[in-house]
Each structure stands twice: as structure tokens, then as C-alpha cells.
């Protein structure tokens, strides 16, 4: 279970990494923390000819706030984000960062890698879709900014072009009355979630003026549950309204049968997670401190 041989390049700058990826072509992969890529290489799901190590690139791990927006560098690890003041300031970010896999994986895995892997079980694309974030990219033809919603296009496929790297993500600081929660369920800490759900609501009392809901491990890509959002938007939150939204989210999911469970099981899980996510978001909007994250047995 070890990787096939490859050439190794350690880039000193983003420009150098992009140039080398382009020069080598299809056989090259960018290596950041390696918590997705190295697992694939060891199982030989992928046999790249070359790895371009971007893990040491300077200036890509900062977490900053400016003009009402949060910006996180692509090489910020899950652990770094989980320990940042941001994780307490915006609890939904802490839910996600501190719940991904386990302590060891969070030491190495990066937010940029979680996006670039295009894996529907990775958590950051789901969280960033929930927060309506932007993904900042840099490639051979310059920089561009893409919405997190739709960034993962298909199983293991993103909107990144060859030689293009994620350099960071940014999102608006949630406004007054806006609160969210990221909840997932998995069999054990190191496992990918069986299902996960991000919920961000804007509330005035129990009146919901805005809602965003995204689902992870619920299909071949991140799924935005727009029908579920519509069930909440403009309504007063109550058990009936929340149940309708949860049912709409479960219906929007396209889960596949695998060792983590049957589609029916995953839909019922999503139903329950949406209810929990809405409830936690509602309590947080009232100013309560609620600790949630991925749950496991």
C-alpha cells in the first residue's frame, strides 16, 4: 500500500508551483498537507508522475478580517482554524474545523486541500457553500474568484483548471441575527461523515428572513438544499416549518449506498441533522453558546 514512484518538486513561490504544474502537464499534482492525496497515492487510486509540494509556500496560512470579510489562506490547517479566535467568533466555522477527522489529520490537512480534492465527503466545501464564500484561485492565466457554491462540480472534479491553485477563501462576517451550525454524523472520528449539514439562518426573533443549507456526503458533490431554504425563508420557525425544511433537504439529497449506509438511512440522517442544525442556529442567534460538531458513536 505504498505510492508508485514520482518526481518531487518543492516550490518556493506560488508562481513557481504554477509554472511547474503547467510545464509537466496532466501527470502533476499539487501536494499541500497530503491528508487526502497521500491516502489516494498509497492505495494507488492515483499514480501521478510528479508531485509539486506547495506545503511550504509563504503567506498562505493567515486568517484575517478586513472590511467585514474573513479571509483564510489555503494552507491554513484545520487545527489552526479550530484554534483561531475566528472559531469562537463564528461558531459554525469552529464546528467544522474542530470536527474534521481527528487531531492528527487536522494537524496536517488544509482548507485549500479540502476544496481542491473535490471529494463530496470533505467538509469545507459544504461549510463554505453554507456561508456563501468565495474561493480565490491563481493559475497560468492569472487570478480569479469563484463561488464556493458549485466549486466542486462532480465526484473528485472541481472548477480548477490544470495548474490552477486555490490560494484562499473569503466570506462576509455574518450580520446581526445571523447564526449557523455545522453538524455531521460519522462512525468514528477518523471516518468521513456518513452525512453532514451546514445551516445558516438570519432571524428576527423566530422569523427567518434568510436561510442557506448545504449537504455533505449526500451525493456526488456538495448539495445546496434550495427547496429546504425556501421552506424556512419568510416563515416563523416552529416544529412544522422545520420538519418541512428537513424533509425537503432529505429529498434534495442523492445519497449512494456504501459501507456508511443505505440511501434511506442517509436521508433519515439528513432529516435529523437539518432539524438539529436549525435548532442550534436558532439558539445561537439568541446569544446562547452551544457546542456542536461531528457526532460519532
Amino acid at each position, binding site marked *: *500500500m*505504498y*505510492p*508508485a*514512484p*514520482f*518526481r*518531487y*518538486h*518543492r*516550490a*518556493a513561490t506560488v508562481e*513557481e508551483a504554477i509554472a*511547474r504544474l503547467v510545464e509537466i502537464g496532466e501527470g502533476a499534482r499539487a*501536494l499541500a498537507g*497530503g*491528508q487526502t492525496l*497521500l*491516502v489516494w*497515492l*498509497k*492505495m494507488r487510486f492515483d499514480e501521478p*508522475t510528479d*508531485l509539486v*509540494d506547495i*506545503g511550504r509556500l509563504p503567506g498562505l496560512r493567515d486568517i484575517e478580517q478586513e472590511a467585514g470579510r474573513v479571509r483564510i489562506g489555503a494552507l491554513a490547517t484545520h*487545527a489552526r482554524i479550530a484554534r483561531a479566535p475566528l472559531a469562537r467568533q463564528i461558531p459554525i466555522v469552529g464546528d467544522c474545523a474542530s470536527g474534521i*477527522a*481527528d*487531531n*492528527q*489529520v487536522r*494537524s*496536517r490537512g488544509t482548507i485549500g486541500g479540502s476544496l481542491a480534492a473535490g471529494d463530496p465527503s470533505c467538509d469545507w466545501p459544504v461549510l463554505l457553500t453554507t456561508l456563501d464564500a468565495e474561493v480565490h484561485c491563481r493559475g497560468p492565466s492569472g487570478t480569479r474568484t469563484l463561488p464556493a457554491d458549485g466549486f466542486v462540480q462532480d465526484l473528485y472534479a472541481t472548477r480548477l483548471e490544470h495548474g490552477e491553485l486555490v490560494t484562499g477563501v473569503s466570506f462576509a462576517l455574518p450580520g446581526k441575527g445571523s447564526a449557523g451550525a455545522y453538524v455531521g454524523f460519522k462512525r*468514528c*472520528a*477518523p*471516518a468521513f461523515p456518513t452525512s453532514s449539514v451546514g445551516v445558516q439562518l438570519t432571524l428576527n426573533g423566530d422569523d427567518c428572513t434568510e436561510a442557506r443549507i448545504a449537504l455533505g456526503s449526500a451525493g456526488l458533490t456538495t448539495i445546496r438544499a434550495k427547496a429546504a431554504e425556501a421552506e424556512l425563508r419568510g416563515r416563523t420557525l416552529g416544529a412544522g416549518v422545520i420538519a418541512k425544511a428537513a424533509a425537503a433537504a432529505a429529498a434534495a439529497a442523492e445519497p449512494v449506498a456504501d459501507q456508511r449506509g443505505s440511501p434511506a438511512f442517509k436521508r433519515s440522517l439528513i432529516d435529523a441533522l437539518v432539524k438539529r442544525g436549525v435548532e442550534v442556529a436558532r439558539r445561537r442567534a439568541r446569544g446562547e453558546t452551544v457546542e456542536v460538531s461531528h457526532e460519532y458513536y
Partner: protein
Amino acid sequence: MSTTEAGGRIAIEVTVNGTRHRREVEPRLLLVQLLREDLRLTGTHIGCDTTYCGACTVIVDGEPVKSCTMLAVQADGAEILTVEGLARDGELHPLQRAFSENHGLQCGYCTPGMLMSAHALLARNPDPDRKQIRKGIQGNLCRCTGYHNIIAAIDAAAAAMREGK
């Protein structure tokens, strides 16, 4: 840009348990292989090989990592602590003593990884409650103890370390 040819080797330098080592390694060499097969530090175990079990946990620059999911070249320049680096001058580390006294192991296969995760936990939080201890070893699987005695051992070690024992 430093680069290698396929099958070629690259020079790296790592400090393991305080000793500096310079090696020419194949880029695909995993950190756990460097530790076990090259440096002959076989206390770090390979369990599942798929980033689940945590038997291969070591501390790299202060952070716990699964050394089966890190390339040796990624550790170039790093300070690494393995289970062999816990005992000092023939004296067991308080964590090792507590695992022994609390029967925190049966077959022992997961133990080096458990010790290193516990070490990382106590470095950040010298006085964890039981829930925090459980979270601290969430990335380490044990197939025999049922975890209770491992948690008791880490709790006891934390108390001993706070008292400077």
C-alpha cells in the same frame, strides 16, 4: 525549486528525539518508514495504513501526525518526537508509568500512538477533563482495552505531571 528524477533521491534533515539525522530518501518514502526502517525506531507502529488507527502517531513540530500519511520529504527540517523519546535517563515518562500502573494496555499495539496523542493533548491542556481526554485520543483506535483504562491512565499522568512527578 528543488526537484528529483523518478526513483531519484533527495537530501533531507530531521531531528528525531533530539538527534539530527541527514538522509537521502526516495520522495515516496513515508515518514513512518524512515523512522522504522531507516532510523530503526520501531516503537512507532504501522496499523491500518489508511489514516484511521493512529498507531503510527508521532509529534512533528509540536503537532500530532499520522506518520503513515506524511512523506519523509515533508518532514525535512522538522523536530520529531517518537515514543522512544519519552523516557529520560532510564526513567519512564509519567504517561508511560501511568499506562503501566492503570493497565492502560493489553496487547500494546496501539500504545505508542496513544502515548503520543496523550502527550500532544497534555502539552496543550495540562488539566483535561475526561471528555477532553476522549477527544484527545479520538484519532487512535484500540481493539482490546475498551478505552476506559487508557483514559484513566492519561488522567493519572496529567495529575502526576501537574504535581511535577
